[in-house]
């Protein structure tokens, strides 16, 4: 087996981890398993793609459309990513306003909200398929050559960038949640929403912040996956099981746990591809999930944000 597995696993795991953080946050603060989260990744990728389509021509006209340094994309992509993340956030806030928030207000059972998320997930994905067709799309057509990075491993600059971006985002989020007043409020709401109200925390605002963070990270994860592989309407749905497995493996509510869970699943997938065969890759998350449920249902990091 070549050491290349490690870096492949890390790269896939970074995407899963970023997505799983959003999932774990909504799980612990809104208290339901959100089946639409995978589709937020796909929507994020497509929205970014659309914006970058508009922006690409504009920037090329300004003469700054060329790829930045060793990367395969120009300034258009980071700018479109910002816009795409913003739009994804708007999408989730609207969805919360018209669907989840309504159900919460009526005191619906958790499982009814889960079911609504399942229905919404199907609808969201199919809207993508209708607008963009099922054909894969690409954020960049530039070819990249993998460079040696030591220990017999190779990676493209784009791949290394995604790992760096993930590390930065997770660090930033970790600081926000552990140090800032917003993070404090989030932890408080996840522990006891009704007491949070007594303390003067506006729970609805915390819920909105949670959607903003979750959707923003989902968009970044979707774009990363789109940059390294391709963009398809089903990309998010295919990632959903790994996301759930990572969130549960890390311990629902734990940000470092979700990232670690994501990395473990990414690595497990990479090893499976090497040892068993690529066709069984999608089954890895299920095996991990079942093992976690049998051995340690609380996950690696228990239940704290």
């Amino acid at each position, binding site marked *: 087996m070549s050491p290349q597995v490690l870096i492949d696993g890390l790269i896939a795991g970074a995407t899963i981890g970023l997505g799983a953080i959003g999932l774990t946050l909504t799980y612990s603060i809104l208290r339901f398993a959100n089946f639409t989260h995978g589709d937020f990744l796909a929507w994020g990728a497509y929205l970014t793609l659309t914006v970058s389509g508009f922006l690409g021509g504009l920037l090329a006209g300004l003469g700054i459309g060329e790829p930045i340094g060793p990367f395969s994309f120009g300034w258009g992509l980071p700018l479109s990513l910002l816009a795409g993340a913003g739009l994804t956030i708007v999408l989730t806030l609207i969805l919360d306003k018209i669907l989840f928030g309504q159900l919460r207000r009526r005191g619906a059972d958790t499982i009814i909200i889960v079911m609504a998320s399942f229905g919404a997930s199907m609808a969201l994905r199919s809207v993508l398929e209708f607008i963009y067709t099922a054909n894969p799309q690409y954020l960049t057509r530039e070819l990249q050559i993998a460079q040696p990075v030591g220990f017999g491993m190779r990676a493209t600059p784009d791949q290394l960038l995604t790992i760096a971006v993930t590390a930065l985002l997770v660090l930033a989020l970790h600081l926000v949640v552990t140090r800032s*007043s917003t993070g*404090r*409020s989030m*932890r*408080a709401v996840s*522990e*006891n929403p*009704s*007491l*949070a*109200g*007594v*303390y*003067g*925390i*506006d*729970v609805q605002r915390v819920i909105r912040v949670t959607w903003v963070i979750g959707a923003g990270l989902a968009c970044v994860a979707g774009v990363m996956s789109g940059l390294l592989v391709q963009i398809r309407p089903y990309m998010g749905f295919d990632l959903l099981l790994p996301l759930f497995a990572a969130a549960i493996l890390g311990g629902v509510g734990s940000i470092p746990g979700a990232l670690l869970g994501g990395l473990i699943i990414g690595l497990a997938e990479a090893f499976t591809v090497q040892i068993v065969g690529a066709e069984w890759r999608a089954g890895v998350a299920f095996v991990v999930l079942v093992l976690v449920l049998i051995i340690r249902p609380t996950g690696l990091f228990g239940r*704290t944000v």
Partner: protein
Amino acid sequence: MTALAVKGFQAGYDPDLPIVKGVSFAVKKGEAVTVLGPNGAGKSTLIKAIAGQVACLGGQVTLGGDDITGVPSYALAKRGLGFVPQTENIFAQLTIRENLQIASELVEKRRRAGQIDKMFDMFPDLKLRPNDLAGTLSGGQRQMLAAARALLTDPPVLMLDEPSAGLSPKLVGQVFETLARVHAAGVTLILVEQNVRAALGLASRALVLVDGELAHDGPTDALQDSTTLGRLFLGNRTREVAR
């Protein structure tokens, strides 16, 4: 000057089965009122509903003259209605300091640090290890933290749900001493208590709730002799006290 008033107030968890059945009273500014009554009479439900934690099924609540019926609990906290629940009244997974910091966000930025220090001075136990998780505190210290959290914002009206529950007599004494100081500083207090003796020592007026209805409302002096009280709690307590 009325600090807080309820009129025809109904509350409960099930719209068909109100636990508080049409209660009316008004609390004057600076008054200390205790809500007494046998178990299951609806005392806790009453103040939880005033604090926006249990659904109000009818009637009206006013705070300083403003209608606050159905206002969510966080907004009540901002308007200066402090509430200390009986159990689960602190965030066990946050540190002691963080518990106070959350509450401090209701006061202006420049006063926040000062208010937290003030609370640490008032409850020196909390100052010992402010960065430990609040879940590591003992029962009495938890009540201190809960009280400190509520007092930090200098609320004009403070409601407490059985602050003495589960505390040793010495700690009960400490808690009531603190409450007396708070009251002396001009805070209007509404106190649900099982510990009648302690509550009567602090409050000047008692509301007695029986089966979700107000059975008695008057100065505590009338209740000071223990035969009346004994009858209230041990004997045929309902009808005669009511009317």
